[in-house]
């Protein structure tokens, strides 16, 4: 049995770790709450954009826009992938799951990866994917402004023919316990995406300056909206995963500390018993 001093220092260590994991859990929880609130505030905006796009599609179904061009005949089609992971670890299986999904989805030969988050960036570079890292001007934050920057950049690449397809790999939070990595296609736009909602018919008759101009501008904001949605969802998932991981780490620390305390008491008791028997033994000898 270990001596009491050794056990005592271990208990101290475990208690320290517990404090840290507990704090990390609280931080994750508050970040999560903030991100969710922010997301809720932005929802009406992007819902509106989508509705307007659907309206335009209804009024001018035969519109030809570069963003609908599937470029099926083009050789060596380049695919772009935006992959969102976190910057740091300590969040359970969150990053591993994203990496798994990304590896499954990405066409390594013709694909270009736009990684968001250090973990995925390092993984992609290490494994020899084509990686572009400087597509975000400034620091990455989960804001509509960053989303707008990325959207603008991606639309330009698409227009210039640098990429012919764009997908995003992110983590979807289906329910509290269900964080599922998911991938959706962003470009080219699919007419089908804008035809689902037939309810709430609204007749828009005129466009100024023209349906094309309005639609092109909307595409930018639509893409921004989808991107932002993916960013927020990933962010929320990340912190949720971290919260859970830290929660189980905290309860684990508690368990370990309990066991150690028991060991400590036992060792202490043993030491006392030993001492007493030694004293008694000594006293007996004196008689």
């Amino acid at each position: 049995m270990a001596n009491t001093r050794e056990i005592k220092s271990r208990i101290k260590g475990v208690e320290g770790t517990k404090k840290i994991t507990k704090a990390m859990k609280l931080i994750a929880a508050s970040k999560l709450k903030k991100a969710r609130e922010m997301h809720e505030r932005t929802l009406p905006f992007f819902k509106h954009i989508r509705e307007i796009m659907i309206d335009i599609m209804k009024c001018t179904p035969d519109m030809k826009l570069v963003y609908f061009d599937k470029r099926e005949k083009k050789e060596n089609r380049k695919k772009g992938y935006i992959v969102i992971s976190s910057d740091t670890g300590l969040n359970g299986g969150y990053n591993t799951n994203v990496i798994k999904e990304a590896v499954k989805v990405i066409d390594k030969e013709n694909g270009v990866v736009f990684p968001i988050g250090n973990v995925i960036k390092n993984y992609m570079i290490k494994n020899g994917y084509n990686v572009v890292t400087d597509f975000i001007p400034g620091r990455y934050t989960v804001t509509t402004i960053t989303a707008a920057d990325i959207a603008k950049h991606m639309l330009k690449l698409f227009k210039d023919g640098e990429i012919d397809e764009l997908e995003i790999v992110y983590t979807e939070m289906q329910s509290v316990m269900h964080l599922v990595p998911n991938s959706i296609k962003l470009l080219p736009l699919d007419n089908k995406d804008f035809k689902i909602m037939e309810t709430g018919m609204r007749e828009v008759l005129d466009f100024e300056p023209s349906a094309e101009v309005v639609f092109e501008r909307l595409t930018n904001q639509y893409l921004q909206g989808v991107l932002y949605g993916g960013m927020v969802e990933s962010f929320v998932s990340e912190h949720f995963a971290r919260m859970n991981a830290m929660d189980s780490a905290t309860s684990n620390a508690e368990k370990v500390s309990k066991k150690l305390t028991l060991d400590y008491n036992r060792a202490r008791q043993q030491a006392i018993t030993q001492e007493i028997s030694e004293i008694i033994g000594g006293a007996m000898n004196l008689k």
Partner: protein
Amino acid sequence: MQKTFKFEVVTPTGIFYEGDVSYIKFEAENGEMGILADHAPVLVATKPCTLTIEKDKKQKYAFISEGFIEVTPQKVSIVTDLADWSSDIDEEAAIKAKRIAEEELESGAADASRKTELKVSIERASARIKTSGLR
């Protein structure tokens, strides 16, 4: 009593304004445009400009960035990236932003896409400056 219509301004940071108003005025690509109740359905791309909202004979002014205005029989909505009440605008910052953008444009270092970007930001700053004086 003037006839009113439902009006809202939606931005990515939330619903900026919502209410029944009698008249609004803004700038479209082709010039200034005003909307009264029962306007024909239309979808207009707007420029960065001053938005005038008239309600109960009182006028309020706000800066809006580029976006869209959708007029339907039920509602008039503006969807824009940014919106600020005239009283909340930091005029000095706008003047500074305008000057910096103008300097970069004049220096000729910007390429074509950067130039359009700069022009938009100058437009935006000018609209801000114009709006900030209105009360």
